């Protein structure tokens, strides 16, 4: 009860010392700061993780000089990026050029807000949770498109267009595979979905179709974050750095961080929907609720690792292969899968403990 | 229901958006801009449906359904409009309204 009580204590304390309006504003600010901090720290350490994992895959050491095991390496990088000059291009549309990174960041942050890290530790338990996540994730792409176009650089533009095509296409699969799981829960609210999973994680409850949905979700999710093997958007060998070629310093860092946070978000959604969020396996730590955070982060990081594994395993796809994969394979499979899942639920063939 | 806000205020806002859309529809010279203005007009009416449903008949859901349908139709309309615009651009390399008057003859 420790974390839960902390949030509650802070809430009560704030409302006791100042008028209601001011208290709620202060509370909002506090929560925002907390999430921003989480965003920054998680982003930085995911970058570090990526580098260490990459090194591990490639049988080398990776960053290990700054701090013990190199844990301050990315902090130092961030500091360096902050201190750098913000260059731009002449004839760029400066308003949109500057606006673009914030789209990406804001959409990631809004998505982070709805995750149930542990029992009652959730900033925004909206009753359409999953749908909200899908809605929010569809906004991030606008930032990429804007960035690519307003840079007035043809590689950036091509990267942005690719990104648009890819994200719009794979959003369908993400949405549909999540919908498949909603058939099992009967609700969109994340807290209730977690509640349902107390009878067994959804990937177990839905067995075969759920596993198919999970596989599709992971493929489509990887594609949505524009990571290898779907990183056509920033394919170095073809487009320079893709849509953020012209960005430098902190603005580049925003895109960079957002990409890693997006990866975290994809993994977190998968954790919430498929693997029971903060629920411990077989309820072994039910008596200690704050351990939920540990389980949630643990599962999420495991899935993040899976995505990194993808990156260092598979070669990049061509654009036409990318679209073929989505429209000719994933989407039809997904639709059939939904029907199968519906039949499964209808005939009560799910596995429940 | 928004505390402290009556239906009149919301309807005022939507009326303003509606006429901004009309203004844009008439004065803009570019097909895409006209499409944008149309979206504004549509959105104004959607909000009206929803708000009237919420404020006057909260037990019913007709307004919500209608707004869902309008949004769906708007999506279809936009897809078609964009397809037409792109095709037009291929043919005459322009999306200005004044280039598309050939049909009047």
């Amino acid at each position, binding site marked *: 009860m420790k974390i839960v009580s902390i949030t509650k204590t802070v809430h009560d304390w704030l409302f006791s010392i100042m008028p209601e309006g001011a208290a709620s504003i202060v509370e909002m600010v506090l929560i925002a700061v907390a999430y921003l901090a989480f965003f920054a720290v998680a982003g930085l350490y995911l970058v570090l993780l990526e580098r260490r994992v990459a090194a591990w895959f490639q049988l080398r050491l990776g960053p290990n000089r700054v701090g013990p095991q190199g844990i301050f390496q990315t902090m130092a990088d961030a500091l360096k990026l902050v201190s750098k000059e913000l260059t731009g291009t002449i004839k760029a549309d400066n308003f949109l050029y500057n606006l673009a990174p914030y789209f990406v960041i804001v959409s990631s942050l809004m998505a982070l807000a709805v995750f149930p890290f542990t029992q009652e530790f959730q900033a925004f338990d909206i009753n359409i949770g999953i749908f909200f996540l899908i809605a929010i994730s569809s906004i991030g792409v606008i930032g990429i498109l804007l960035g690519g176009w307003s840079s007035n650089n043809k590689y950036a533009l091509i990267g942005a267009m690719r990104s648009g095509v890819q994200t719009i296409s794979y959003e369908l699969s993400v949405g549909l595979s999540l919908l498949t799981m909603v058939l099992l829960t009967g609700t969109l609210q994340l807290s209730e979905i977690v509640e349902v999973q107390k009878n067994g994680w959804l990937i177990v409850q839905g067995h075969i179709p759920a596993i198919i949905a999970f596989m599709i979700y992971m493929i489509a999710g990887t594609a949505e974050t524009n990571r290898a093997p779907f990183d056509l958007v920033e394919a170095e060998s073809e487009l320079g750095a893709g849509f953020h070629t012209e960005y430098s310093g902190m603005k580049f860092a925003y895109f960079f961080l957002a990409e890693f946070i997006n990866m975290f978000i994809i993994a977190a959604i998968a954790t919430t929907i498929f693997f029971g969020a903060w629920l411990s396996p077989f309820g072994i730590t039910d008596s200690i609720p704050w351990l939920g955070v540990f389980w949630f982060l643990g599962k999420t990081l495991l899935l993040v690792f899976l995505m990194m594994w993808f990156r260092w395993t598979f070669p990049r796809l061509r654009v036409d292969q990318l679209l073929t994969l989505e429209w000719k394979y994933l989407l039809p499979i997904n639709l059939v899968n939904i029907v199968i899942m519906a039949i499964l639920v209808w005939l009560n063939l799910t596995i429940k403990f | 229901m928004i505390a402290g806000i009556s239906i009149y205020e919301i309807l005022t806002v939507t009326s303003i958006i509606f006429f901004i859309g*009309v203004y844009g529809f008439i004065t803009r010279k570019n097909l895409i801009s006209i499409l944008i203005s149309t979206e504004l007009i549509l959105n104004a009416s959607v909000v009206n449906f929803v708000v009237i449903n919420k404020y006057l008949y909260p037990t019913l859901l007709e307004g919500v359904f209608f707004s869902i349908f309008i949004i769906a139709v708007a999506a279809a309309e936009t897809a078609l409009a964009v397809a037409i615009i792109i095709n037009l651009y291929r043919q005459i390399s322009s999306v200005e309204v004044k280039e598309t008057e050939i049909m009047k003859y």
Partner: protein
Amino acid sequence: MEKIIFYILAFIIVAFAIASVSSRKMLRSVIYLLFVLVGIAGIYFLIDYNFLAAIQLTVYAGGIIVLIIFSVLLVHHIEMELEIAKPIKQIVTALLCLIGLGVFLYTIYNHPFQPVENYTTTTVNEIGKGLLSYEKGGFVLPFEVISVLLLAAMVGAIVIAKGTKLFDKK
């Protein structure tokens, strides 16, 4: 509190709507429209229609705006400036719109609306049941019609956008 949020939203909506129809840069005008739409989604959140808000975000912000941006990317260059109508036409239209707005507001404020006090939240469940109900007041038929319409629009859009290449192959 909600009152303040509403006023902020209303301000955002109106300001960006005006910006959207007066900006001379194509993509900016689209982005302003996006802000308007997000603001409207905010109003939906405020009056507790979360589902609609999410639809607004998904379909409008994620679908329609992206489509429009796409078409802008395809047909528009960054250095282009939009032509605008002659000032006299702008003024006349603006006057006309103001008169129309006056008529609207006059009608609205003269109509005695009778709001019902309520704080019910509409769940997705209710919406889904209403949409797929075929009993009295059910909306399954319009629902089907809309799906057919969407299919037709999709096919039509593909055929139109594919252009003449479809028929060039003998």
